């Protein structure tokens, strides 16, 4: 359970930034 909580919260912290990176690349590509 501890591992699950830690893994989930790690993803909560890191994945929005990773997703954002791709989203920003998409917007920039559309702008170009």
């Amino acid at each position, binding site marked *: 359970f501890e591992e699950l909580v830690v893994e989930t919260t790690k993803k909560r912290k890191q994945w929005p930034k990773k997703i954002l990176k791709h*989203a920003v690349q998409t*917007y920039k590509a559309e*702008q170009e």
Partner: protein
Amino acid sequence: PPTRAQLFDTVVDTVLEKLVAAGSYERFASCYRCFYKLQPEVTKSIHEQFIFQLQASIKEEIQEVKEEGKLEMLFDALDRLVEEAKDQQEPAWRPSGTPEEDALSAMVPYLLKHHSYLQRVLKEKVEDNKQLAEAVLAGRGRIKELQQLIQARREAWQ
């Protein structure tokens, strides 16, 4: 108010002190009565060593736990966050439990920028096209004029 790091150290030290107090020489000697009767001086010495080792080992292990988990740094950071939020009375945002919805908010600032960019580009294109359209209409007018002039010359020759 004490910092989180200070509070942590204080409560751990307090438990250790009280544990040491509970394991008093009287209690120790009472449990090891048979040995105490044989060698009271040695019993005292062993008890002192026991207390010393217990305190030293536990303190060392707690220090390792603190270093491993970078607790001091984290406690300081959390104290700073709490200080910064001291004027916020309302409960702050917490994860909703639906990751895809929470991730959307992270994209909002960039989507808003993209929205502004598109609005600006559209405005420029509309303006450019307006001028182009005027030029095209003027061109069509000129062509019609030329065609009429040519028609008039041709008819005159005919």
